[in-house]
């Protein structure tokens, strides 16, 4: 019982926090509504008369003040109705949830690449700091951070699609439906389509994590327990992986939770370059076409995702670090 109670109250607290975050996001979203652009223009042709436009504006409730619109939205939200997209003509939540698997898998694939490459890369740079290899890895990582994700994408397309013709240039290709979840991971075509966007997206996080792991490792390798272990004759590999890395984990995990949100933000660009049918692409489309209900719901969903991932990251560092307790995490 004692263990469950703090855990339950921790989660409850996070739930409340999530609701507050979403309310705050919503309030801001509604306050800036009028400057998001005019959806009427997107919905009517050039020859539509001023009165036609005024009529449509009234019909969409755009003439009301933002608190009134906000109130109407909350009333709808209470019954599960988050509005209807102007361009998709369906429930905004439905539209976004349809795009969620594509974005999630892209982020997942990018994260996998980051994990698979940054751990060995970071360790290598820490244990052989003066080697040519380490300098190359670090040099590359500087390049990775400084090249905008947009350019990375275009460069990869130019090389792998246009010049060599190995990989497709855009889209998600064929997906396989598993219990209603459209997955790219289960077909060759899907994986081919996934590779370039995932590499592009990972190019932002990979250098960061290599450096993070490297500095955390360097920190640990200089500590007394490492020297003691060395003196005891413990093998190097065991010291690196078994001791130093385990302690170096904590800041990395904490960062990972925070960076996940960033990754989500960068999907906007990656998805645009590769015409990846995910949430980020959808959001940019909504912004260019001033689909206000869709923009609002996207912000709410992303706010929820942020809180959830941060909660997961907190729980993970909790599980990994015996020094941190639930009480402290609160």
């Amino acid at each position, binding site marked *: 019982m004692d263990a469950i109670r703090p855990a339950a109250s921790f989660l409850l607290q996070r739930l409340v926090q999530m609701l507050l975050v979403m309310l705050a996001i919503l309030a801001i979203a509604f306050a800036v509504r009028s400057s998001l652009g005019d959806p009427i223009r997107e919905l*009517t042709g050039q020859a539509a008369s001023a009165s036609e436009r005024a009529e449509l504006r009234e019909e969409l409730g755009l003439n009301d003040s933002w608190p009134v619109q906000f109130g109407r939205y909350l009333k709808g939200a209470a019954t599960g109705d988050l509005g209807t997209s102007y361009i*998709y003509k369906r429930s905004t939540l439905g539209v976004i949830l349809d795009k969620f698997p594509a974005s999630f898998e892209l982020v997942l694939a990018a994260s996998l690449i980051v994990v698979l490459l940054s751990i060995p890369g970071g360790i290598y740079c820490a244990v052989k700091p003066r080697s040519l290899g380490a300098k190359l890895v670090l040099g590359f990582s500087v390049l990775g951070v400084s090249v905008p994700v947009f350019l990375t994408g275009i460069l990869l*397309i130019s090389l792998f699609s246009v010049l060599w013709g190995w990989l497709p240039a855009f889209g998600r290709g064929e997906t*396989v439906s598993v219990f209603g979840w459209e997955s790219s991971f289960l077909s*060759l075509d899907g994986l*081919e389509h996934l590779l370039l966007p995932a590499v592009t997206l990972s190019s932002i996080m990979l250098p960061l994590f290599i450096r993070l792991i490297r500095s955390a490792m360097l920190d640990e390798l200089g500590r007394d327990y490492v020297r003691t272990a060395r003196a005891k004759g413990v093998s190097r590999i065991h010291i690196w992986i078994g001791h130093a890395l385990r302690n170096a984990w904590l800041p990395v995990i904490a960062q990972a939770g925070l960076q996940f949100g960033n990754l989500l933000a960068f999907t906007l660009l990656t998805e645009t370059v590769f015409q990846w049918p995910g949430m980020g692409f959808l959001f940019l489309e909504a912004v260019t076409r001033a689909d206000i209900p869709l923009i609002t719901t996207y912000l709410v969903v992303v706010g929820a995702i942020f809180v959830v991932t941060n909660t997961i990251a907190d729980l993970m560092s909790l599980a990994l670090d015996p020094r941190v307790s639930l009480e402290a995490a609160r």
Partner: protein
Amino acid sequence: MVRPMRVLLALLLIIGAGIAPAVLSGPAIAVERDKTLRMAYDADPISLDPHEQIASATLQMSHLLFDPLVRFDKNMQLQPRLALRWEKIDERTTRFYLRPGVKFHSGNTLTAHDVVWTLNRLKRSPDFKALFEPFEGARVIDALTVDLITKKPYPLVLNLATYIFPMDRDFYSGNDQNGEAKDAIVKHGASFASTHVSGTGPFIVTEREQGVRLVMQRFPDYWDKESPGNVGEIVFTPIKEPATRVAALLAGDVDFIAPVPPGDLKRVEAAPCCTLVTMPSTRILTFQLNQKTVEAFKDPRVRLAVNYAINREGIVNKIMRGFGSPAGQLSPEGFDGYDPDLKPRYDVEKAKALMEEAGFADGFSVTMIAPNNRYVGDYQIAQAVTAMLAKINITVTLQTMPKAQYWERFDAREGDILMIGWQSDTQDSANIFEFLAMTPDPKTGYGQYNGGSYSNSEVDKLTLESQTMTDKTARADLLRSIERILYDDAAMVPMQWQHLSWGARKNVLIEPVVNSIDMPYLGDLVIE
């Protein structure tokens, strides 16, 4: 195409298969029936309802899923489609003889009733009703004969007949499962017609994921058996990012793209895999000088000076890389109002002299607003003009913004110089004058986009006169005279006619099916 990366991925997949064997399935092999056209445009239509919005995407789609009564060919000549022939019965009546035996996708046969029904629907569409305002209605004469009746003698009946894509009356009648009328036109929500189609066009929608993919199959009972088109399937993908669109074409992932961004024109042209087709469109890009906010712009000499100060040729060559035609008037070549003598002006010395004459030798300061994602080259052109006007001491503070923000500002006339592009919906000069040059009047809607509030009673009078003139030669004379008044008065600052661009793989013969009104007739497309 051999893709070595496949091997690597196959290995990964096999490893993955060990973890999740139950859900693994092999890649499906696409079955090729006839020719498949994989095409990528910058956007897909947001609705399958042809009457929901007048927009290029909607009209392009209409030419695939429907057929108009008549259509323009490459030389802007009218071509019979669902109407075999037509004749004028009296001043206000044009009789159309429909093609017999034309089938809708639903299996119904096209009759005059469908045409009448469609015209009535057009007349209540918020977007189309203004265009069809001159029409009183249509009358069924017999199953294959229909009269279009206008309120007054109207010279553009046939131009507007290109917008009449007969819809399947029986298919769209009654209520859907939600109890809503199937023929409802809904702009911002779901409707039967926005997701269901029965037209007479060469293609049927078989799969649609909005924003991602639109698949169309050739309609087996399509009436036009003589069409050389051999495309059996169209896979339409919107690719918003221009660089990716071009890459997809060059990589062979798609066969046909539009538009090709100006920066990539040379690249596509030079690529051995591909063909580039460009041509001037009918869209005029112009600046308007706001006489409501700037006293000086009321002086024709100042407006002339502005016109003389801008090097349109230079902008087209340097900024647009030849992808535009310098303009001295509003009507594009091929329109009745086009006057070849009205050349673009450029003479900085003369501009300075005019400024001095008007008492503005020291110049003045103004603001300019322009969109930055609406027209090809929009904000770069605005920047160049800003620099050019500095030479005659007009200091311009330029603000560019996305189109979503722009139109609100334009409607409020929040700028001393405003940019606008205009494409005549009727393929006729009068439409340009009505919207851009006539004195703004909220009651009639004339001058709705006359951002400069330029007002000339002669222009108003002549434009109204042209609306009921049915003598084509006399009418063309009149339209040209309006164009000349606007030129002499320097009513606005025409910049250039925008160009259109399409890129395709070499075996896709797009040249014969594309046109200056940007309505590719893909039913007639041949793929080798």
